[in-house]
């Protein structure tokens, strides 16, 4: 192995890559825009949609309740609902989203309310539909308020204090530092994108530097030089790894900058409160350290797959299934209730997803961290050895 030759190949590939717009897009532009756009853009869009839905006065329908006019009048008077005239097909109207929710008031409800023995009110909604959910939530608030007021009146009439029905309140106070709260909120999603971006960042250069070179005829030119095959493959591999790590670095830098901007614009930083979206910097450093062997693994596997291919098109057909093979374990890692154990710590990709989630929420299991780093480094080393072996095989390089 000759470090000088490896360096020569690496510098050439770096220069070549930096002149390629497609690689720059996958290496810098996508990761830089992707994270803030996805995390904050989506959050902003979701907030806007929910706010707009909340502003809407929901159309609701009261089914039955002919003998409970006061309840109906109070509901209409509240101004929170647009009460539609009763109709026999109210369930269909909810399904068609023409009415958001309905409340079925049983016979004798109002009478029973005054006596403390009113039958149950049934609420109808379209489960999973945002506006219907908000409408039924407001209906529940209305009837809960009605019940509380009726209870208080009954107690008062009997000379009892209102607190008898609610002898104590339950309060909830968060004791976790903001960065740990942020880590728990973003802990699942950040590893997901970081791992995915380290794959995306390596993808195009891996294809271009192997199958692309074969297709363009420059591979044979290169192999005519006295440079050792191992030096050539290592120089190329280092370039692919650089692209992968740069994609991750771009994404994290962009995310950090976005978080600072959000904090500054909301004024939380000035008050000394980093806000609920702040993340422990140590957690970020931990993620960066853990992502290195993953990036090596991805770079080597992608390079090996693309090396086997005769053309860029064939290489793309090999690489596409790999994307799914990566996304699935990472997505499983996000699911709540899946915790690290020694068995999962050996499952590639899933182990990284889980340990990064823990580190971002301030949990440092050093045994798992060591095991995951070591096992991933071992997988990565094996993949790299396979790359070198394949590059030395004329059956692969001159495959027809």
């Amino acid at each position, binding site marked *: 192995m000759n470090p000088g030759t490896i360096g*020569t190949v690496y510098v*050439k590939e770096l220069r*070549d890559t930096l002149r390629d717009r497609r690689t720059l897009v996958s290496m810098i532009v996508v990761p830089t825009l992707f994270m803030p756009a996805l995390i904050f853009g989506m959050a902003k869009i979701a907030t806007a949609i929910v706010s707009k839905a909340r502003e809407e006065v929901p159309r609701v329908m009261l089914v039955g309740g002919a003998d409970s006019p006061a309840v109906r009048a109070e509901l209409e008077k509240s101004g929170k609902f647009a009460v539609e005239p009763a109709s026999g097909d109210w369930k269909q109207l909810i399904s068609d989203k023409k009415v958001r929710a309905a409340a079925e008031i049983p016979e004798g409800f109002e009478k029973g309310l005054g006596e403390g023995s009113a039958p149950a009110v049934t609420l109808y909604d379209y489960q999973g539909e945002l506006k219907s959910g908000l409408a039924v939530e407001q209906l529940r608030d209305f009837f809960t308020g009605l019940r509380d007021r009726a209870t208080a009146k009954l107690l008062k009439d009997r000379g009892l204090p209102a607190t008898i029905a609610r002898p104590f309140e339950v309060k909830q106070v968060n004791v976790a530092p903001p960065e740990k709260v942020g880590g728990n909120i973003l802990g699942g999603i950040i590893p997901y994108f970081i791992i995915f971006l380290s794959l995306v960042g390596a993808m195009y250069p891996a294809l271009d530097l192997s199958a692309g070179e074969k297709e363009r*005829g*420059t591979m044979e030119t290169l192999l*005519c030089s*006295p440079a050792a095959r191992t030096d050539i493959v290592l120089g190329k591999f280092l370039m692919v790894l650089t692209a992968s790590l740069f994609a991750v670095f771009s994404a994290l830098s962009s995310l950090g900058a976005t978080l600072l901007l959000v904090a500054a614009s909301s004024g939380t930083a000035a008050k000394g409160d980093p806000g609920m979206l702040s993340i422990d910097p140590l957690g970020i450093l931990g993620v960066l350290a853990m992502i290195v062997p993953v990036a090596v693994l991805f770079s080597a596997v992608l390079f090996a797959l693309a090396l086997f291919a005769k053309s860029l098109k064939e290489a793309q057909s090999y690489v596409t299934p790999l994307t799914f093979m990566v996304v699935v374990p990472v997505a499983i890692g996000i699911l709540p209730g899946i915790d690290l154990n020694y068995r999962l710590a050996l499952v590639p990709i899933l182990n990284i997803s889980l340990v990064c989630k823990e580190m971002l929420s301030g949990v440092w299991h050093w045994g798992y961290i060591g095991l995951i780093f070591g096992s991933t480094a071992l997988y990565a080393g094996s993949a790299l050895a396979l790359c070198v072996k394949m590059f030395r095989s*004329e059956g692969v390089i001159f495959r027809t």
Partner: protein
Amino acid sequence: MIEARLLTKIFRDTKRGDIRGADQVSFRVEPGTIYGLLGANGAGKTTTLRMIGTLLRPTGGSATVAGFDVVREPDRVRANIGFLAASTALYARLTAREMIAYFGRLNGMDDRSVRARIGVLSEELGMGDFLDRRCEKLSTGMKQKTSIARTLVHDPQVMIFDEPTLGLDVMTARSIVQFVRECRGRGKTVIYSTHVMSEAEKLCDRIGIIHGGAIRAEGTVTELKARTGESDLEESFVRIVAPEARP
């Protein structure tokens, strides 16, 4: 000097079985001469040259290039050859200068030597106008000059040309042929594969006619014609590789 002794290459194919890409090919090329490997497409020219250039490992036989064995000392062999083929392309996003310098460095040259060599080659090949232009922007002729400079940057003793004029226009092909002659004039050992009879006739001191992976006949153009009793190299070639095909 190049010496091939019973050079054989068998490609293993799961569907088609063993394929003999080259079958006991033997020849010798002295410095200052051009040896032509003349054969139809698929005859075994590229396989033979790739074994000599150490891109493929022989299944049997041996070969030495400038005194180095192609199996035991492949790096040294490659350090002594310039390999130019229709399939050896340029890096589109590098400039002509960067392309030549890259191969100079891969050949172990230091920056000063590379700079000096690029100056000499640029002067000789008339590359001054496009030396700093990206290869993707060069005309076919300019690309060929850059490829030639790439093969010559380390001043190799042995030149291997594998159908270098394939797909080129007449003027560019002529400049390649002229360059091959110059290589001979400088005392380099040259091996030149082609299926173009006129090129072989004009250029080669000796010709090996290859067919089905094996050398079927060898000699000077005059010797080959005399052997077949033909006055034309093409007729001699056909008579040697497919005697039954003649009317």
